[in-house]
């Protein structure tokens, strides 16, 4: 006859066993590099890197989705190129740094008892948010710049909201650990020959990632960008493409006209020849993509402000630029006064000395300074002016 196990004894037994096992695991980590100083150094670097990513990420988000009171300047021309390049390249270079930090503090995962008090539990909860969130941001971000979407959510929205969770957890964690960071100024203990070597190794890995990718946005280092998902000169008319005409469902038709409507004194309907008859301007502007790459090109076409003035508009109007594209998140974009007043903002008809190819937005695309690439609307068919 089977004896019924006493549940309390069983629980005690499991408890004792797990304690023994956890303490045993904790003794495995013998390296001197699992110490506070190494963790604090890596933590300071991560704090800087994640703050840069958070701020540049917010810039990118609010450039694309400005609240009604927010107006972005159109200069400096390359500002968005710089902030988004920093966001993506710093993000990729942070991957070795984060892995090193998690390796250094890994033994703490196996501390015993797992929870000492309510405050300790809260602290570990924040660390979980920080670890899960950091890995989440870097992994999904890396997949996104490689155009690979194996996850069941929309990348930009999830990446944006998770950033708040990570940054909040980072602030709390920094407040908790600040005493250890202050300890960095004290002279190091006499042992520990390889800490400097370890930190140099991590810096080397981060640097190598940066050097082999930064050329996708910093053109002078273009030849070194051997691991970058993009090359500035690779694409039709020596310029990369994000969404092709095929993907957008746009074909080369006849009878294209550009209509200007809304809050205008006279509505316009311009043919391609009408646009070509207007004063032609040539500008050199970069396409700076949200995915971090950027490439400069020489654009030719008419100034957006010339077209708007021809229709008769007030100085403070906003313009909605609409594409031939039937659907898609980026089929329209908003152009605020600073951008449409800017003489560099064109309705471009040519790129690099040739008429736009269909993939670059034939017959007509928007090109403006200091603006995300997804807002440089292609296949423009309609300008809707509003107050």
């Amino acid at each position, binding site marked *: 006859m089977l004896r019924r196990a006493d549940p309390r004894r069983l629980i005690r037994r499991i408890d004792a066993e797990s304690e023994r096992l956890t303490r045993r695991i904790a003794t495995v980590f013998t390296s001197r590099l699992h110490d506070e100083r190494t963790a604090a150094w890596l933590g300071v670097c991560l704090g800087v890197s994640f703050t840069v990513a958070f701020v540049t990420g917010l810039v990118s988000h609010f450039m694309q989705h400005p609240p009604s009171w927010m107006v972005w300047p159109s200069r400096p021309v390359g500002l968005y190129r710089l902030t988004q390049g920093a966001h993506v390249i710093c993000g990729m270079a942070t991957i070795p740094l984060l892995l090193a930090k998690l390796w250094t503090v890994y033994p703490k995962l196996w501390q015993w008892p797992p929870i000492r008090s309510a405050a300790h539990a809260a602290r570990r909860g924040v660390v979980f948010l920080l670890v899960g969130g950091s890995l989440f941001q870097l992994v999904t971000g890396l997949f996104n710049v490689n155009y690979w979407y194996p996850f069941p959510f929309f990348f930009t929205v999830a990446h944006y909201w998770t950033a708040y969770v990570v940054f909040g957890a980072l602030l709390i964690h920094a407040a908790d650990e600040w005493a250890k960071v202050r300890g960095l100024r004290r002279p190091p203990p006499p042992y520990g020959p390889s800490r400097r070597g370890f930190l140099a190794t991590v810096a080397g890995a981060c640097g190598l990632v940066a050097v082999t990718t930064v050329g996708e946005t910093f053109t002078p280092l273009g030849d070194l960008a051997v691991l970058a998902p993009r090359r500035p000169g*690779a694409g039709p008319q020596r310029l990369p493409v994000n969404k092709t005409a095929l993907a957008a469902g746009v074909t080369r038709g006849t009878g294209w006209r550009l209509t200007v409507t809304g809050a205008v004194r006279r509505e316009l309907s311009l043919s391609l020849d009408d646009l070509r008859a207007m004063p032609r301007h040539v500008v050199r502007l970069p396409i700076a993509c949200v995915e971090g790459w950027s490439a400069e090109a020489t654009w030719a076409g008419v100034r957006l402000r010339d077209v708007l003035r021809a229709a008769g508009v007030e100085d403070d109007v906003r313009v909605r630029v609409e594409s031939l594209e039937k659907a898609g998140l980026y089929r329209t974009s908003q152009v605020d006064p600073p951008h449409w007043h800017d003489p560099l903002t064109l309705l471009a008809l040519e790129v690099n000395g040739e008429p736009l190819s269909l993939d670059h937005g034939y017959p007509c695309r928007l090109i403006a300074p200091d603006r995300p690439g997804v807002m440089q609307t292609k296949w423009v068919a309609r300008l809707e002016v509003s107050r």
Partner: protein
Amino acid sequence: MTRRALYAAGAVFVAIGLAGIGRHVGVAGWALWFAGVAVAHDAVFAPLVFGVAYVTRRMPAPWRRAAVIAGTVTLVALPAVLGFGRRRDNPSVLPQAYGKHLVAIVILIGLVTGAVAALNAYARPMGKAILSIVGILLAIWLVFMVIGMIISALKFLIWIGFLAVIAAVVVTLISKMAKSS
């Protein structure tokens, strides 16, 4: 005081983020990935790294460091190497041979590490011999570089002198013509 302010600010940010996720992101899929990457790191990746570190514990320090760098760079490059994001209609996405490039980088890391290890072995006769050969080659290259630079500098100076002579002649001629007229 500062600490309390940081706690409060952090809590507000976390609350904003979680509320946004609740309203705009499919929570189940998001939570699966959020916890999934943490578990994948803690339960699979980290033990794997510790396992490899244990197996290679007798490896000299420079080679272990090289392995760490090569390993992390490989991880970052992996999505590009796998190339799941490639599109038939858009050859400008992932346009490079990332596998080949990664192999070349790993080989380069190996070569640099080898050179560093050789440098460390400088005191030993064999290392000394290798290093003196490399040093002689470098010296020869340097000498040629310097000779080339001197020659090009001379050429440049000769050109400047030539232009100066022409300028002097022209100026004298003009002044003479001005006087005679």
